[in-house]
């Protein structure tokens, strides 16, 4: 992008004094003022809620009723209550299936496959495939979830029409499978682009010599490609696991139902806290989600650091 400034040919004074990166002479005070508004908003709407969720989890706060006016401190009661709740474990198990199925197997597998298939290609076919995959990723969640409701509809749905299975209720009979395939479709773009960038960094000469030595495609992948992109794979796995784990979109497809059969943790919090009004209980579940996020994020950041 061309810039519209021509720098004045200033006689470059050799300024005495320590080298400083503060070229505009901002100074610490003004720098503080520059940072303040952002930090204020982050503190108010990100840090404070996180701390508050820890506190709320220790009370019997409710949305309505007596406990809404004067919440009592119940200590670890909620946390223990949440953990003792079979619905929580059901949700946790469903979330594990959701993350493993749609993120680890679905998005990583499919994303890598597409990137690998299209690695040496240029032209309209590549643009078409990439464009469609990215389209699934950028369309608003409310729309794509409805498109899938239409696709999977038991009577007029396109899928049943194609498979010749009129009356098969995918969302009712196989809610988890539905949201797993849906989320794979929805999120593959990120992995595809990440692996596309990673594969372009694999030196072609290495692949060439492996081919000349008679390595099969699978051997080339295993011995040349994977060692090169191991860091990308880890990054990708951690990020999409984190995102999928916190994803609320399944709610739009199945609303957690039927009978909680697709109630992943994100939906579970919503149902407990805001539909049943048990804010304290919901906050305790949120605390657990925060802790899991923290573990994954710290692991990811350590990984980034060790690679620098």
């Amino acid at each position, binding site marked *: 992008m061309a810039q519209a*400034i021509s*720098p004045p040919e200033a006689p470059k004074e050799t300024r005495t004094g320590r080298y400083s990166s503060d070229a505009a002479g901002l100074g610490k005070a003004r720098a503080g003022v520059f940072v303040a508004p952002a930090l204020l908003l982050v503190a108010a709407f990100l840090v404070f809620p996180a701390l508050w969720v820890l506190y709320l989890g220790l009370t019997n706060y409710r949305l309505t009723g007596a406990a809404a006016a004067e919440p009592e401190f119940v200590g670890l009661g909620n946390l223990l209550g949440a953990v003792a709740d079979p619905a929580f474990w059901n949700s946790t198990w469903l979330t594990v299936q959701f993350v493993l199925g749609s993120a680890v197997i679905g998005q990583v597998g499919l994303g890598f496959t597409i990137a690998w298939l299209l690695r040496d290609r240029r032209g309209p076919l590549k643009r078409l495939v990439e464009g469609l995959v990215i389209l699934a990723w950028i*369309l608003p969640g409310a*729309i794509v979830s409805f498109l899938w409701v239409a696709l999977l509809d038991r009577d007029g749905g396109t899928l049943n029409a194609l498979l010749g299975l009129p009356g098969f209720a995918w969302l009712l009979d196989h809610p988890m499978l539905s949201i797993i395939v849906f989320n794979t479709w929805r999120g593959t773009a990120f992995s595809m682009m990440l692996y596309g960038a990673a594969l372009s960094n694999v030196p072609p000469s290495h692949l060439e010599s492996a081919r000349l030595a008679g390595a099969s495609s699978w051997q080339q992948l295993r011995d040349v490609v994977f060692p090169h992109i191991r860091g990308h794979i880890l990054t990708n796995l951690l990020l999409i696991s984190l995102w999928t784990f916190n994803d609320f979109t399944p709610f739009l497809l199945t609303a957690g139902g039927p009978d909680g059969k697709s109630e992943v943790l994100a939906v579970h919090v919503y149902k407990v806290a805001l539909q049943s009004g048990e804010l304290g209980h*919901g906050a305790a579940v949120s605390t657990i989600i925060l802790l899991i996020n923290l573990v994954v994020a710290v692991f990811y950041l350590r990984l980034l650091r060790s690679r620098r």
Partner: protein
Amino acid sequence: MTRFVLGRIGFSTLVAVLLAFFTLPLLWLVTAPFTSNPTYEVTVPDFTWDNFAAVVEHPYALPSLWNSVVLSAGTAALVVAFAALAAYALSRVRLPGRDALLYALLLLSSIITGTAAMVPLFQLAVELNLIDSQFGLILILTGGLLPAAIFMLKDFVDATPQSYEESARVFGASPLQIVRHVVVPLVRPGLATIAVWAVANVWGNFLMPYLLLSDVRKQPAAVITYTLYTEGGQANLSMLSTFGLLYSIPVVLMYLFVSKKYGFRFHGGIKR
């Protein structure tokens, strides 16, 4: 030779399956809006404009698109302005505790999600009287996006040379003038990236407005879509498909614009 042919066949089959998988769900969105009385079935449209007329007449449909514009534009403007100031200061001035702050910001942005924070955010909004306030929602969304935005922008600022700023200073420009007239033009691609990223984020966000806006006149398109198909249990398909198409077009245009102008690729940070 047979291996080569088999390879070609395998490749074509795989690509065809992929194309089908990614196209199938989208078909309905491009056919139903132009079909009179659409069902869930994908049929050849009879090219009617009646559905669009119905959307225009719906009391909340078009206003909700406008609400989405207000929310995304407002959030993007705040995110860009605050992130730019903070990123510049953090990049150029060694504030005490800067590295720890950056690390904390990065950590925060990835662990505190709408899911984990929905209860306290709802409470906070009630306490601060921000329920049903679009401005309040903009502030909350901005707070959520800022850490990642600061991080991405700092990469951009770090990569710009300081010589322009030094020259401007030699000519007696004040720090604020330097930031406005020298730094901002230099990092404009970075600002544009952040703005597009923020708009895309807010445009599709369902959870926060769903939680915090109960007045149907203030709700953005994401929430209105949902009300269109749960109202009375029966989905209004002609309405929904047409509205969905209108709601999707802006993001598609934005994607085309961005990929044409910058190439839709990863910037710094994420890649390694």
